[in-house]
């Protein structure tokens, strides 16, 4: 099952590279992603019944933590593929992209999904790094797909900053291997996460705490944590919207996953809160800086990229805080943020296509123009801002409770960040959705399914958390202790 999950997107990428710009290319893209999702769900079921397992000669490893992210990744990639069919067709009609780029777009989209899944499922922290770099490389040219000066600038920034950042993570991995080699001996075995986890108590603490600083800077750049976030708003706002949706909704999660996996090892070795404190610092700074930056945005996709930084900050902060409640909250937060944010990007993509601009001042009257886009955006923003009864409220509430208990002094800062972000988002979104539709607004066919599906899921998780999800998170919390 595990290998199927990895092979499907790779195969789809090759197939789409050959199919090119035929009429049915978007359908193949959807079918490939759907098959990936089915494989992911099957794998999850297997893990749910039989517990964690190793596959491919210890090369791959699944437990409750990564399998839920793998299912999420394949699910969101499927809905994004559905959305991208309508979206890209409209871009084609307007001549923003040609045949070759469509071919390239589809193939790279699947390669990107493959890289993320490899990242999640590999047991080897060296391969983890390689897959992370591959995920960056496969999206760089997608960010510059429109070839406008700003798009090229954004992609160049993304390439350079993430490249530099991630090389710090490689140095961290070298140090980790250095410590592991002393205990486990040489060879590939010493880089396997499951082996490292077993012996983490006897790894040299000084080396590991140093390694964590490098890993934090490296993977933290990819998570988009302040002050390493400069690439993120540019890359997310200049690329095509389906790419913004998967970058914000999925790639950031995967990078955070890598960081948390490393943190578990460091914690086991140092027996202190060293790694947690660093993560809390970066997380809180991200929440505050992103919340105040939200106030100044004029570009709609840029604004929601800052919101992604804020939410990744919340999850990083919660993982750093540790403890069962905060970790549970962080896992839930990764899930609901990913669903809500990608759904917001779907509606934002359609809204900007209706007005042919990303400037918020020119987007007006969405309720009247297209109720699904208007209400979808409104509900999405309500969800992401943390209003009950949506799932984000639950996760933020859990994290806040844990903060009051374990780090009461930080509570006001957290509340300040959340409050400012809330106000900033509504101040901008309210005029966009209400009022009369302007004359330059054009009606268009929109993709209903992804938006409705995501919103319903976020709502269901907020109101009633299914028992299996609950169990799943509890198992993951145990693993991350």
């Amino acid at each position, binding site marked *: 099952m595990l290998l199927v999950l990895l092979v499907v997107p790779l195969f789809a990428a090759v197939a789409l590279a050959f199919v090119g710009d035929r009429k049915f290319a978007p359908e193949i893209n959807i079918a490939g992603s759907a098959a990936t999702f089915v494989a992911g769900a099957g794998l999850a079921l297997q893990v749910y019944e039989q517990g964690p397992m190793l596959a491919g000669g210890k090369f791959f490893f699944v437990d409750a933590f990564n399998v839920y992210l793998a299912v999420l990744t394949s699910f969101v990639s499927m809905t994004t593929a559905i959305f991208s069919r309508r979206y890209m067709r409209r871009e084609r009609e307007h001549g923003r992209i040609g045949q070759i780029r469509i071919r390239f777009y589809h193939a790279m989209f699947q390669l990107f999904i493959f890289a993320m899944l490899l990242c999640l499922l590999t047991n080897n922290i*060296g391969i983890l790094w*390689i897959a992370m770099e591959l995920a960056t490389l496969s999206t760089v040219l997608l960010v510059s797909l429109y070839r406008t000066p700003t798009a*090229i600038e954004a992609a160049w920034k993304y390439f350079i900053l993430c490249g530099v950042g991630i090389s710090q993570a490689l140095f961290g991995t070298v140090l980790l*291997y250095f410590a592991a080699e002393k205990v486990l001996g040489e060879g590939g075995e010493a880089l396997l996460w499951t082996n490292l986890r077993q012996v983490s108590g006897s790894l040299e603490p000084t080396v590991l705490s140093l390694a964590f600083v490098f890993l934090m800077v490296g993977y933290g750049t990819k998570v988009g944590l302040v002050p390493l976030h400069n690439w993120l708003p540019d890359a997310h706002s200049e690329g095509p919207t389906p790419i913004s949706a998967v970058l914000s909704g999925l790639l950031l999660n995967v990078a955070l996953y890598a960081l948390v996996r490393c943190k578990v090892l460091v914690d086991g070795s140092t027996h202190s809160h060293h790694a947690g404190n660093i993560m809390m610092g970066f997380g809180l700074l991200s929440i505050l800086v992103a919340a105040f930056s939200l106030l100044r945005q004029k570009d709609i996709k840029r604004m929601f990229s800052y919101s992604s930084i804020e939410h990744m900050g919340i999850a990083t902060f919660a993982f750093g805080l540790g403890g069962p409640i905060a970790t549970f909250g962080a896992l839930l937060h990764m899930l609901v943020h990913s669903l809500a944010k990608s759904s917001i990007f779907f509606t934002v993509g359609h809204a900007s296509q209706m007005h042919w601009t990303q400037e918020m001042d020119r987007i007006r009257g969405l309720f009247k123009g297209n109720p699904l886009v208007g209400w979808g955006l409104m509900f999405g923003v309500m969800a992401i801002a943390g209003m009950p009864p949506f799932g984000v409220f639950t996760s933020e509430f859990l994290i806040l409770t844990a903060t009051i208990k374990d780090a009461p002094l930080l509570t006001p800062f957290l509340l300040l960040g959340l409050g400012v972000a809330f106000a900033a988002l509504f101040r901008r979104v309210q005029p966009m959705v209400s009022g009369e539709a302007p004359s330059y607004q054009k009606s268009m066919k929109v993709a209903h399914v992804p938006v409705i599906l995501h919103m319903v899921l976020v709502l269901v998780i907020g109101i009633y958390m299914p028992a299996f999800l609950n169990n799943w998170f509890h198992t993951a919390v145990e693993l991350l202790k």
Partner: protein
Amino acid sequence: MDINVVAQLNSFLAAFVLLTAFGMLVQRRMYGLVHLFAWQGLFLSINTAIVGFVAGKHHLYISSLLTLSLKVFLLPYILHVLIQRLKVHKEVEVVENVPMTMLMGIALVIFSYYLMSPVTQLSTLVTRSTLAVALATVMIGLLMMITRKHAVTQIIGFLAMENGLFFAATSATYGMPLVVELGVALDILIAAFIFGIFFFHIHTTFDSLDVDQMARLKEED
């Protein structure tokens, strides 16, 4: 070979790697930079082979050959062709405040030695003393990317950082497992194609490869 001789040889080559890193920091001509980069790759490759021979680690021979073909021949060749095609070989980049940059480079070397001293003490390998040099090479590559404004120069800085990382892996642990080394090499190769494409995009869009022109995306107030 006597272990002392090897340690000496290793330090000697490390010194050359660091020297080329400093050279790149202030080299203004494009071809000069590419040549320095190729030399750095050559020193790394020889060093890896020697370490592999002494430690009896045969997979290091493969890494050494990989470095030789990738970083001494292929990447410099690609860069050479790109520079020629883009007609930037005559461009002389303005390097601001050379003494200051050099001093910062030296400060980074000292900082690397300070940072790596606890790790070096724990190591029993012949190559342990060069770990700090490796980190310094990474840091100087980073400094180069910050101080220089030309797209080609920034990429060479990026590749120099990668060289430093490879050197670090050899010094700290006699190289990463082979599968990881191969994967990293593959990533670099893909990155090379991407920046190649990028140079042309930047060149046609901005009419120059000066990255300072790319400053349209700013925070608006």
